[in-house]
């Protein structure tokens, strides 16, 4: 394998590696015919990211002939090669990546100004193939926006925040932090933002779903997208199915695939039912920020359902909001929110009595047999199946 990256692309490669480091500790390198794939996965296999750099990204791209080569390297060693982005920009003219199969070394040579050459010989280990199974084009909900929108949204959440829930209706997207039932409810703070569909370049909702996923692992992609200015596309389906965020341009494609919390089957059924029985929401009245109106809205719009027993009409401080009725609440909150303004609400939540079942589904890794796959990151060559943690998910 012998590749050369020149000029500004060196910095792009470096940024991609730094963003992959936010996912896992190891960098999986696989030179493919359609480009160089750099992948990472977290230890619980609930987050996966892949950057594919097309041959045109490189000024020279030669891959090992005959056999497929795959390896993994400690991501910290690779990060050390591209440690200072500012320096890279100022002094690096080109980066040469070469494989030395005898010595099990992947050599990164940075050719810098004034003739300085920085050579890093990194040891690698042979690795199994790492491919996540997902078909983002089949997902019900698709969005695209400038990274600034998502960065500005995410900035409202503390860096320590683990999980966020994203819910959508035809015209809006809500992003709020996810609070565990086990957490001390009296200290829980809920932050919720509402984004209107016209803030997005593309907003297509087919199912009014709510997905909860880990925010931390996403931040790496946001940093990458923001610095490269590439729009971010978001794809998700039902809870339990992964959420995929991607950036793409003519020479690269990055996909971040994060597992989402799955409700158990019961809940999912109820959610669907509730969607049908709810009265149509009143027309959006975003000028009305009156808290009383909000309370009334909560009272009257909630349709009784088999698992909606917990909903009642107490004041906000005592309002009971269970995971099961999350979908209904999203719709009611909608009435009192101002358009395009991000609000922070603080209210207490209490257990509904029966903690709902939840578990993050591990992403299913396995052989890809989808015939319609247009995904260049999903070559169908690998038949190796990695065991998922599905045993843990059975409840």
């Amino acid at each position, binding site marked *: 394998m012998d590749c050369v990256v020149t000029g500004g692309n060196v910095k792009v490669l470096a940024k991609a590696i730094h963003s992959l480091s936010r996912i896992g500790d190891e960098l999986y390198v696989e030179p493919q015919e359609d480009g160089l794939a750099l992948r990472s996965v977290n230890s619980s296999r609930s987050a996966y990211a892949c950057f594919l750099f097309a041959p045109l990204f490189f000024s020279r791209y030669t891959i090992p002939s005959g056999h497929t080569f795959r390896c993994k390297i*400690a991501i*910290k*060693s690779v990060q*050390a*090669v591209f*440690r*200072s982005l500012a*320096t890279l920009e100022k*002094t690096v003219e080109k980066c040469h990546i070469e494989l030395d199969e005898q010595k099990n*070394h992947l050599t990164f040579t940075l050719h810098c100004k*004034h*003739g*300085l*050459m*920085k*050579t*890093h*010989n*990194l*040891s690698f*280990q042979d690795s199994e193939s790492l491919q996540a199974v997902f078909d983002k084009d089949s997902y019900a909900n698709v969005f695209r926006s400038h990274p600034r929108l998502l960065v500005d949204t995410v900035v409202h959440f503390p860096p320590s925040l683990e999980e966020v829930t994203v819910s959508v209706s035809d015209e809006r997207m809500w992003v709020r932090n996810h609070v565990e039932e086990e957490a001390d409810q009296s200290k829980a703070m809920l932050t919720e933002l509402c984004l209107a569909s016209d803030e997005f370049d593309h907003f297509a909702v087919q199912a009014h779903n709510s997905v909860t996923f880990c925010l931390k692992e996403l931040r790496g992609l946001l940093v990458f997208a923001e610095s490269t200015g590439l729009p971010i596309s978001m794809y998700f389906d039902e809870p339990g199915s992964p959420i995929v965020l991607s950036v793409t341009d003519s020479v690269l494609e990055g996909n971040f695939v994060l597992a989402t919390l799955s409700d158990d089957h019961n809940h999912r059924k109820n959610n669907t039912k509730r969607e049908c029985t709810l009265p149509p929401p009143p027309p959006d009245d975003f000028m009305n920020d009156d808290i009383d109106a909000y309370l009334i809205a909560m009272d009257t719009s909630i349709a009784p359902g088999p698992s909606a027993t917990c909903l009642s009409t107490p004041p906000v401080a005592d309002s009971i909001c269970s995971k099961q009725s999350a979908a209904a609440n999203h719709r009611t909150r909608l009435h009192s929110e101002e358009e395009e303004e991000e609000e922070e609400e603080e209210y207490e939540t209490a257990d509904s009595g029966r903690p709902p079942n939840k578990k993050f589904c591990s992403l299913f890794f396995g052989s890809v047999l989808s015939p319609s796959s247009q995904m260049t990151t999903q070559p169908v060559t690998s038949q190796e199946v990695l065991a998922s943690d599905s045993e843990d998910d059975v409840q």
Partner: protein
Amino acid sequence: MPLSTQSQADDEQYVLVASLDNARNLSNILKAIAFKDHAIFSATPNGLKVTVEDSKCLQANAFIQAEIFQEFTIREDSVGFQVNLTVLLDCLNIFGGSTAPGVSTALRMCYKGYGYPLTLFLEEGGVVTVCKINTQEPEEPVDFEFCSTNVTNKVILQSESLKEAFSELDMTSEVLQITMSPSQPYFRFVVKNLKLLSTFGNSGNAHYDYPKDSDMMELFRCDKTQTNRYKMSLLKPSTKALALSCKVSVRTDSRGFLSLQYLVRNDDGQICFVEYFCCPDEEVEE
């Protein structure tokens, strides 16, 4: 200026009087060698030499010539004492070390001789502070016996390129290996990532190569290929001097001892030198 109103009579008791309009011209250069608490001061009519040592393997010297000082009077051929360098630097920066233009601390450093404290008169904006720092018997600095006749390889570089390389070097590595040679690779630093050894077997190494014809290279005189290893912990303090300098000379002698000489320009554009000597870790002949 209050400092200059001291009577002549006072001056006669001092064996050494050195004055600076801008104390930063002394404090900045001392910071570049302040990796230990104690420093040996040695003054001669040529100027001031301050030495800091670490376990007899590393020695740093800062040279401030007499011409740098606004006043430099010495009544003996050689005056020597030892002081706590950390305390001295704190005193020199007693007015807070403001970098506002036009604002500087004036210094008058006086020493009466053996057994007497080092007296510093510092003034800024009309406020005068007097500091007296106890002195100790000066230890004899180690003589590294590094003489120019024994130098095998010498390279003079512009500091800019070395600064960047040093800041990136994995400082948690234990050893830095330096190769200097009349043929390829000419001038090379090798860092072995010993830290990552445990998790991934031999996780590899990195090396930085400077070609002899680089425009950063001002002088390249290497007679024989030499590779020496130095403890990173010993080289780390020299990065402060590197950061201040505009040029650096790297020399090794036949024993593998390393001499790094830094050319530092102070606030007023005057030249001072800082020198580091370092013992090799072990000799590796390639």
